[in-house]
């Protein structure tokens, strides 16, 4: 038995961390946000050149074919470093959808670009308030064209294409490939909690689209969500760990009443609780990594479990990082808010805790019936 990342992946983690740290020391992201242009296209190409964007993609489409363990590790590091790169949208969602459901031609059209950091993809399932559900899809596909409004579409401002959920002829939602530079596509920036992962309202007015052949039913969309949930969970775990590390560092350095505030049990025990939540989330995410790497039958349960734990851990860690920082944590320049905002954004964007809790228990219930 070996329930840890492989030695190769562990070695690679060092590289990933170094590059992200060099390119994005704490505060650099915030400065790019302040400058109004968070997306860094050079970085995107660099990530591509390092082989990280296509780390789990087949070599045939420009990937490194190093498997999902490596991708999970990169997701964790991305979550801690918060680089301004459309990693989740392009890699967990758009590329995954193409790999799972796309035709060979569709894969060849877009995946090499993502792997190289030349293209950006995204996914458009949500249509406003609500969790993912078939009844929540009003966008219609007819005669190879989509009509409807998608919102929020993360990284929609910079994406070249989107995988869009729309109802086909039979009324069943499926996934469609849309070139976002084509006619009939309108994107309007909308304000969002997350300052780095920016969102748009995507209006499709007869925009040309082609179906992903393998993705023409709701279970396909759920499968995409499940797999993405595991990858997002690693981002969340990485974010939780980074927020915890910030809080621990500050608590050690900050003195009050003649002693380090980290010597007060109120702070010690708060951070111990954050650690516990983060470790449980990490452990659940590990099982998710195993499930996605092995396409295990348990994947739906593993995904919901990893997702729920990671969302809670990141929320707690981000929130209590601010609290540990006291007044300083409440300032823009402290960077604490970047995690706090990201934690909430990731908590809802692939469906809320409510949605994942219900799916988890429904699945466990079904297993027990079967």
């Amino acid at each position, binding site marked *: 038995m070996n329930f840890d990342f492989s030695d190769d992946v562990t070695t690679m983690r060092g590289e990933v961390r170094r590059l992200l740290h060099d390119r994005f020391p704490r505060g650099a992201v915030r400065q790019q946000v302040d400058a109004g242009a968070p997306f860094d296209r050079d970085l995107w190409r660099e990530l591509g050149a390092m082989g990280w964007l296509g780390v789990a993609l087949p070599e045939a489409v420009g990937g490194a074919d190093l498997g999902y363990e490596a991708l999970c590790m990169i997701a964790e590091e991305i979550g801690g470093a918060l680089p301004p790169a459309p990693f989740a949208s392009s890699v967990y969602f758009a590329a995954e959808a193409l790999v799972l459901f796309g035709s060979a031609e569709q894969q060849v059209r877009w995946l090499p670009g993502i792997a190289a950091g030349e293209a950006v993809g995204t996914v458009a*399932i*949500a249509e*406003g*308030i*609500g*969790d*993912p559900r078939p009844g929540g899809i009003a966008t219609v596909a007819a005669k190879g064209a989509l009509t409807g409004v998608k*919102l*929020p579409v993360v990284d929609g401002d910079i994406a070249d294409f989107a995988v869009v959920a729309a109802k086909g002829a039979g009324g069943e939602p499926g996934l469609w490939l849309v070139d976002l530079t084509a006619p009939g596509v309108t994107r309007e920036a*909308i*304000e*969002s*909690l*997350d300052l780095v992962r920016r*969102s748009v*309202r995507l209006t499709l007015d007869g925009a040309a689209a082609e179906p992903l052949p393998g993705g023409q039913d709701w279970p396909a969309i759920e499968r995409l969500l499940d797999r993405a949930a595991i990858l997002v969970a690693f981002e969340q775990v990485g974010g939780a760990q980074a927020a915890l590390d910030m809080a621990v560092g500050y608590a050690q*350095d*900050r*003195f*009050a*009443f*003649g*002693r*380090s505030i980290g010597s*007060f049990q*109120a*702070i010690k025990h708060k951070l111990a609780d954050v650690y516990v939540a983060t470790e449980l989330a990490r452990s659940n995410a590990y099982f998710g990594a195993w499930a996605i790497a092995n396409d295990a039958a348990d994947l739906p349960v593993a995904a919901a479990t990893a997702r729920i734990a990671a969302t809670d851990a990141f*929320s707690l860690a981000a*929130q209590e990082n*601010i*609290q540990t920082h*006291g*007044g*300083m*944590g*409440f*300032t*823009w*320049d*402290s960077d*604490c*808010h970047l995690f*706090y*905002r990201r934690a*909430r*954004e990731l*908590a*809802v*964007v*692939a*469906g*809320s*805790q*409510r*949605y994942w809790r219900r799916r988890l228990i429904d699945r466990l219930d079904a297993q027990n019936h079967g």
Partner: protein
Amino acid sequence: MDFSDTPQEAAFRAEVRAFLDAHVPAKTPGNRSYASRAMSPADVAASKAWQRTKAENGFAGILWPKAFGGREGTPMEHIIFQQEEENYLVPASVFNQGVGMAMPTVMTFGTPEQLERYPRPALFGDEIWCQLFSEPDAGSDLAGLRTRAVQDGDDWVVNGQKIWTSNAHFSDYAMLVTRSDPTVAKHAGLTFFIVDMKSPGIDVRPIKQISGTSNFCEVFLSDVRIPDSQRLGAVGAGWKVAMTMLANERFTVGKTEGPDFEDIFLLTRGLELDGRRAVDDPAVIEHLADWYVQSAGLKYARLRSQTALSRGKTPGPEASIGKLVSASKLQDIATYGIDLLGQAGAVMDPAVAPMNAWFQHALLYAPGKRIAGGTDEILRNIIAERVLGLPGDIRADKGLAFNQVPTSRRQG
């Protein structure tokens, strides 16, 4: 138990209502605002005008002596006015610190000249006051402050940095606490001043908060000269003056900003989950009920305090409950309100996010509520020590001269 007014109270309440009806519109469900929180110059002007109107009609200083333009009313009348004023759309006040905290402190410690000069313009809305207490290295540990005051002839020369000052950028005067002697124990070496905010050497800079807005300032003091006549209380008695000022805080009712139960209730009554109203969902009910119970408990606890106050009792540290509970409740409600919106929860566009994105905005100011005015941790300490009688924390700085107390800087 009796919620009805005495005849005197009823008469006063009628008088208050008549005054308010004559000057400001009543709140209605329709005119509720989900406002952002930074004060514009127009807001300040409106606040000044409303303060003057109240003062001219005898409602600004209900607890103040008549000599300073007050009413010499009862605590119950003070409460009644606040209860009634809450039902009207009035400008946000910039006078809580001056009228509620600073001037009562001046009345306790001030010289005849100070008493002649300051209270009346504060009451009538002519002068705004702020509070220069906290420092970057002295927040929860206020007595650890390092802003130095050195006597120089008839003046004091002050150098240092203050932080978390509300209203500093449009204040006329400040209540300032400094360290005049770093060689004695930390509580013993402090001296208190009244300082003109237009003095040379005062530099006010807004602090950008995590929400992107600025409600607080940093105040840098560089060789600021303060005449000794502006000293409040004896040299070395600054801690006592500061504590007196903070104790007066209990008479100023801090407005609880929402969202609160009513707001998340409204949200859940309009939102559909799994084909039914969210408010009918057992999981939602669980959260709603607990928030209602907390809000109601705080409301009735406040009524109990007011009863004690009206009987001449001094409300104790149990008032810490209010902030402790409501700050976390605010953060929880904001978080939950966002999560209920599912995939669009992080969107702040008012066309999508209900109630002008109030829950999203609240998420960003809620963390400050758990910190400002005493962190959760400090408040629990206060309750444990002053209400329950448990021992104080072991003091690492006990018996040390201030300049011998360990700090990260000196050790790092």
